[in-house]
């Protein structure tokens, strides 16, 4: 028995992934607490960069809802189907809240031994995380979960995180296509 459960470990690994990607972009990343979680925020990325003269925002924070799963998600027509708890779905789609927010889902192998490998040459974390904006998404009548469709192209990398930040800095929303 260990201090962290398996679910705790996958959650920590998803945060570590986000933190590493953000740091590579020169952005800071801080963990949320239960008060932030009450509005769907697990982590906050702080951006401070001049993206260009036509860009409005240069110093702002982006809230992230973090999920992790070892389940094999169904891939159909280039999109992964992910069952998001209805509470989180409503928090992320809420148009009364800030649009500077998105979902990150980390996919991990079923075998915990595959999650993290460290040697003197490299650090390998499997597999990867995907991002999705849900601001303004349609209402759901479901009671428990709402399936969201994550494009397989939406791998969260330093480049894609920077693209997300630039889009938000131009005051463009991360719209969702159901």
């Amino acid at each position, binding site marked *: 028995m260990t201090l962290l459960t398996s679910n705790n470990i996958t959650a920590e690994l998803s945060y570590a992934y986000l933190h590493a990607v953000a740091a590579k972009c020169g952005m800071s990343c801080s963990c949320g607490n239960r008060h932030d979680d009450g509005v769907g925020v697990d982590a906050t990325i702080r951006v401070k960069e001049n993206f260009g003269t036509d860009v409005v925002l240069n110093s*702002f924070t982006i809230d992230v809802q973090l999920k992790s799963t070892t389940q094999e998600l169904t891939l159909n027509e280039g999109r992964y189907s992910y069952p998001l708890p209805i509470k989180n779905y409503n928090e992320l789609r809420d148009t*009364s809240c800030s*649009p500077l927010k998105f979902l990150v889902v980390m996919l991990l192998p079923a075998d915990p031994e595959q999650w993290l490998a460290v040697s003197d040459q490299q650090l390998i974390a499997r597999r990867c995380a995907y991002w999705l904006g849900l601001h303004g998404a349609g209402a759901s009548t479901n009671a428990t979960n709402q399936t969201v469709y994550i494009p397989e192209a939406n791998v969260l990398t330093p480049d894609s995180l920077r693209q997300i930040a630039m889009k938000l800095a131009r005051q463009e929303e991360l719209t969702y296509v159901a």
Partner: protein
Amino acid sequence: MSHNDSFDKASLLECLKNVKSREARAYATANGWVRKPLDFGGLAVFDYSQRELTQLLIPLESESNDFPIRMLDVVQRLAEVEKRSVHEIANDLLNPNADTVRFRISDPSISSDLSLMKGIEILDGARKSLLAAAHSILAPVPYHSRLSRREAREFVDQCRLKQTEQGSFVVAIACPLDAVDAEGLLDGIDSFTRQTTKVLMESLDRIESRIEADQEASLTIAENGKVPISANLCDAIAKLEPPSERGFVEISMTWASTKPIEDTSLRKTVRFSEDHFSVIRDIGSRLRPSHETEVANFAGQVETLNGDLNADGMRYGEIVLDLLVENELVRTRVHLEPSDYAKADIAHMKGKPVIVRGELHRGRRTHRLANVTRFDVVEGVDER
């Protein structure tokens, strides 16, 4: 110590629910932030005029679910820029229509607490400094024998003690701009509160600057165009003295965001260290009349009996009372004849209060009550 040190996030978020977006925006505008023409997703975007890559995103809708979290971000950004604690910023946002004066006592001997008596003394010093400043704008004299002007007391009664802020021992008092209706009483367009807080900071600045320049003697001389420093203010500052020699007290003012201060030369923070306090006490003593009398009834408690026996074997002579004078206990010596001395003896033994009428002479250190015409023990009060 950084200005965003750990804080109780839960209670701060709860407080921030009460901040009004309009008032947060007014605060930003009054403090050097410029609003951009376009909002984004219910957020007003402000640039900081004095630094690049520094922005505020203030939520426009107080009803939105993430309003407290968004406002916390605003408070944290403001705290970074202004180098103040998040609690100070939050308190100021919650009191936009008040000048907030902070008395910060910093001392190596204060780790997590302060003696109760010292804490009470600091609160009393803070209150009296405001009371002294308020009296000075009503009557610019070097000494107010009674701090009892209605408008000044009303002003202090309206002041609010704010939530405890982190960082040393901090007393934060919000002074509402509309505390007193003093129309026609004062010159100028500023409110009673604003005139008081300006006089307070100008006086503190003058005291500190003159002491630093070895020109403290000039503080006892009237100057054209300046409200005289009062002995009452000096006495109030003396109460703020930190417990140890290495401590200091810092008095700062945040002007109400709804009425920004026009005189930008007015200092917002004044610091007094141990070196200053003995000088301030001395200035206060020199400003106070050396002999000042007042005839009235006083309530008090008999503390000591120092009389002698007369030829008839009856005690008479000096006793020491703690008299209640202007809400403060002052030690006072009184000479009593045998009949009154006997009453004092009974009061002392039974712990009963007394009422005494006489001529109070306020000394620099010791007070004296002369020409006593009444000395009565108050009956009906439970014995000690």
